[in-house]
């Protein structure tokens, strides 16, 4: 154990004493991601805002005050329908939530005899949001705002979006891919240098003539590299989290929404366990390749197919409909299992069984890989012969 810590300390010293490496590996990725995603997000939001050509279906729940219906009929890209007596307001709201219709306007009379206008919309539906904005603008233009109360009841939720589900499914789809990409690039930026680099420079032999066991050397390397890769991934993750509001929608930062789909402490803990176990697997795989390679250049070349495979698995996981405990067998497949598990966490769809399978199978794979690295460190053909 002492030797493992000594090796880890040396790896940390090698990393943290090199200011250029700390900047390039820890700070630059997060900073770049923040800047690029913020730029992308601003432009995407702008483009989405301009998409007003789709016709919105607006349901009016009678009685409709005089002048309003005419005003609505004159609005572009809007199909105005009157709700029948059989249409219940809750059913209509469900239809908005399911994006079958876009707006429901309900008119009631308030105590001061001014009509209340309730405009229900779905903020996750661009057509609904555009229609809501247009109708509000129309009411202002007609100077009717002073005559009506518009969405004035503070106890009513007018935006009927299922925020948790909407954002959960978005996060669940692309965040795992993003995280695995960040983790892989983090591992790739440090592991080849630490193992293939030591072989390349002839410094690994100096370690191999000390009494340290090959297994201690392998474990020390893999663990320290995992910690460094995690710090590196954390930097990228912070950059991502900070830029997410701009990336998805500027309005996420708005008011109460952030409270309605916030993740719990257990979600974060599970995510942490999944990330740590996945990092061990990724660092292990890259360490195997780095041990086999005789130079950093060769290691980088040999790692490329693994990176492509990881990306392909990541993309496949984005289209996977399996969630929770539907098919637990998938949670035994390395890398794919982590993507699924992270997707479940982000989509608020956690089932304990698949989570535990993912974490423990990753730990088993990592142990086997460390054992393989140990064997490779013992092999003179691998260490010196090639």
């Amino acid at each position, binding site marked *: 154990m*002492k*030797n493992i810590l*000594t090796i880890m300390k*040396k790896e940390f*010293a*090698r990393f943290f*004493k*090199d200011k250029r490496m700390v900047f390039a590996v820890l700070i630059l990725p997060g900073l770049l991601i923040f800047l690029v995603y913020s730029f992308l997000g601003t432009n995407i939001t702008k483009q989405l805002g301009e998409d007003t050509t789709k016709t919105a279906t607006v349901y009016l729940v009678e009685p409709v005050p005089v002048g309003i219906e005419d005003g609505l009929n004159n609005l572009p890209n809007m199909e105005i329908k009157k709700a029948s007596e059989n249409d219940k307001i809750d059913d209509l709201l469900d239809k908005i939530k399911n994006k079958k219709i876009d707006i429901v306007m309900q008119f009631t009379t308030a105590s001061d005899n001014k009509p209340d206008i309730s405009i229900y919309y779905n903020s996750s539906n661009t057509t609904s949001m555009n229609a809501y904005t247009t109708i509000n603008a129309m009411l202002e233009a007609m100077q009717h705002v002073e005559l009506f109360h518009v969405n004035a009841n503070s106890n009513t939720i007018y935006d009927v979006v299922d925020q948790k589900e909407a954002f959960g499914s978005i996060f669940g789809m692309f965040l795992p891919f993003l995280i695995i990409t960040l983790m892989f690039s983090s591992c790739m930026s440090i592991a080849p240098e630490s193992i293939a680099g*030591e072989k390349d*420079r*002839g*410094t690994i*032999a*100096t*370690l*191999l*003539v*000390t*009494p*340290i*066991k090959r297994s201690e050397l392998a474990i020390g390397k893999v663990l320290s590299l995992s910690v460094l890769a995690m710090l590196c991934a954390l930097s990228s993750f912070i950059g991502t989290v900070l830029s997410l509001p701009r990336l998805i929608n500027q309005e996420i930062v708005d008011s109460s929404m952030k409270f309605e789909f916030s993740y719990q402490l257990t979600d974060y803990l599970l995510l942490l366990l999944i990330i740590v176990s996945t990092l061990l697997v990724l660092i292990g795989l890259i360490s195997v390749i780095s041990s086999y390679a005789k130079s950093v250049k060769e290691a980088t070349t040999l790692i490329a197919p693994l990176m492509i495979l990881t990306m392909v698995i990541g993309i496949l996981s984005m289209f996977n409909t399996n969630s929770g405990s539907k098919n637990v067998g998938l949670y035994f497949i390395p890398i794919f299992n982590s993507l699924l598990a992270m997707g479940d966490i982000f989509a608020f769809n956690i089932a304990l069984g698949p989570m535990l399978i993912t974490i423990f199978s990753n730990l088993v794979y990592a142990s086997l890989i460390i054992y393989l690295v140990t064997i490779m460190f013992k092999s*003179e053909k691998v260490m*010196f*012969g090639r």
Partner: protein
Amino acid sequence: MEEVLVVKNIKKTFKLSKKQQKLQGSNETYKVAVNDLSFNLYKGEIYGLLGPNGAGKTTTLRIIATLIKADSGDVFVNGYDIKKEADKIRKCIGFLTSDLKLEGFFTPNYLYDFFSDLHNVDKDIARTRKERLFKKFGIDKFAEVKVENLSSGMKQKVSLVISIVHDPEIIIFDEPTNGLDVLTARLVMDFLLELKNEGKTILLSTHIFSLVERICDRVGIIINGKMVCSDKLEELIADKSLEDVFFDIYKNEMEGKDL
């Protein structure tokens, strides 16, 4: 006398890549680096291994240092069998060869402490030893300079000092004065004698006849992977110089004659 190192009939063969075959101008797919080689070391002596380039000296030393394994034969260090107790052997030997490099990013100070930790040396003892050795080799002025910024001679001295951080009983040096200026080479030679006086056993591989003549008690001559001669220095050279004796042996060996 107590035997601290026994090498018995070791053999080592390397597979040659096509590139290596080309470099060696040979069609052979295998090269026998060490062939049925045997010798032993007694406690407190300095044993010199002589031989031309490619004779198998470094391969022999690397086998003893547990870096590579012999195809056949036995090696015992301080009674430990290399096949079963390599970890224990690494504790009692200090090994220095030009193949072993130090990470240029670190300072001599850091590396000394790091290797002391790996060898489980008591911190106080390590500090005292470091001060003494750094001062002796003039490393103290450069203790906080990164190894990559040191001169090649200073790097060699740092490597030497670090190879003995754990005060090993048996010291194996491959070309320890290679690349050193005359003053530093003399310093190393004196240091080897000092180690001998402390009761250490030293196995030395070198091309420098004068060094062997000055400090070695016994000499082994390796040619084409075989130990062709192993004897006390004075009995080997008699009234000749070591260089003359070596060339006679080499010539006879190449002509296939017995000495």
